[in-house]
């Protein structure tokens, strides 16, 4: 019977992604382009913010994927610790720089929007601050991967760091609310009708969200393939030295 665990076999994983990835790449690019073009050129200007409001189509998806990437790493780390599937550990490693980049995009687009709207590039607002802390967690996680030579030990230690880091990142997120009141607006995507964006904006935003999500999947799959290949080259080199 087919189960998700068969993709834990690196060969099966490579075979499947080899077939799926090109189509997925095209799809991700198409959805992102459609979403951004729709958002940038076919939505009305906001009556207060003018056209600066349209940065939301990059800012919100990037921010959501930045936290989403960390959750994906957490899940992959757990799978590695429990079931010892190497593909899972490598996927967590592959996702970290992507997540970090999304975090940076979120921070920078926020600053670009904040300058004309709030009159400041940076404010120690809870959301902004917790994102900066998330960025620090990404740096530490990647640095630990880079520092350890033994791949299994690196996978183990980074997984433990990811678990503990998740708890503390979560804690920081609520601690900063305690420490400073917010300037950032409420959620853009919300069940609460009052808080939710107007439909004219939220429809292209949904497209952008799906596009960024696909983009994340494509990047992580591609990077995981690279990691698997790098691991294979190392094994071949080791075998050659032995011979």
């Amino acid at each position, binding site marked *: 019977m087919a189960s998700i665990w068969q993709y834990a076999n690196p060969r099966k994983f490579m075979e499947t992604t080899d077939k799926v990835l090109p189509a997925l790449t095209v799809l991700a690019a198409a959805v992102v382009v459609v979403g951004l073009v729709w958002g940038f050129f076919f939505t009305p200007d906001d009556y207060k913010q003018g056209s600066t409001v349209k940065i939301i189509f990059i800012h919100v998806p990037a921010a959501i994927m930045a936290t989403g990437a960390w959750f994906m790493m957490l899940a992959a780390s757990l799978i590695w610790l429990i079931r010892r599937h190497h593909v899972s550990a490598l996927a967590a490693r592959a996702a970290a720089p992507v997540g970090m980049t999304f975090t940076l995009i979120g921070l920078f687009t926020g600053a670009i929007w904040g300058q004309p709207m709030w009159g400041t590039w940076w404010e120690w607002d809870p959301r902004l601050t917790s994102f900066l*802390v998330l960025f*620090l*967690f990404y*740096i*530490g996680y990647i*640095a*630990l991967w880079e*520092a*350890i030579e033994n791949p299994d*030990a690196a996978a*183990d*230690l980074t997984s*433990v*760091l990811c*678990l*503990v*880091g998740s708890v*503390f*990142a979560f*804690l*920081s997120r609520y*601690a*900063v609310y*305690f*420490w400073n009141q917010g300037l950032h607006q409420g959620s853009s995507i919300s069940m609460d009708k009052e808080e939710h964006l107007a439909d004219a904006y939220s429809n292209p935003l949904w497209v952008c969200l799906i596009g960024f999500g696909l983009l994340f999947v494509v990047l992580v799959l591609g990077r995981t393939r690279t990691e698997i290949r790098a691991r294979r080259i190392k094994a071949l080199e080791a075998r050659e030295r032995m011979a």
Partner: protein
Amino acid sequence: MIALLKRDLALAVRAGGGFGLGLAFFLIVTILVPFGVGPDSGVLEIIAPGILWVGALLACLLSLDRIFALDFEDGSLDLLATAPIPLEGVVAMKAVAHWLTTGLPLVLAAPVLGTLLHLPLPAYVWLMASLAIGTPALSMIGAFGAALTVGLKRGGLLLSLLVLPLYVPTLIFGAETVKRGAEGLATGTPALMLAGITLASCALLPFAAAGALRVNLR
């Protein structure tokens, strides 16, 4: 476990153990701040709680890599790992020893440094209380970070990169307690949160740290 604690304390206090180094560092950081921001007592009064907490945090960080590094190098960590006491207990005892030699002196020295920074009078008791309940968390989180990086050659810098983000909640609640104390507000909420972080760290992190140590020792 008591014997281990006594051994670690003796090693830390006697020559070459680096005892007092963290304390001296705390003193220097606190003295440097007025040079940086100017001697205006109004300014110092406002930033004193934050400076004292950041100083304590950095002083704690300074001695973290000593928790396991020396024992790792001379092989006694391997002996401890195969000893009949659980590795989690070893980690906890190491963290306690670190706290007794670094955290506790900071708590006792903090009021003196508070005077230098014109800390308002009602804040002193909260400064000592918040450091007393907050620094054990710093030691325990630090022991976890030290366990992660123990096998690495240049682990020191990486250790601070890993540990400092983990210190964020402790710092926020610790400094907030002192700040509220200085302004005469109710300090119960941040102080309880701080105690919660310390207790949860002491309860859970020994397991994570021992897990990391086992990986590094295999």
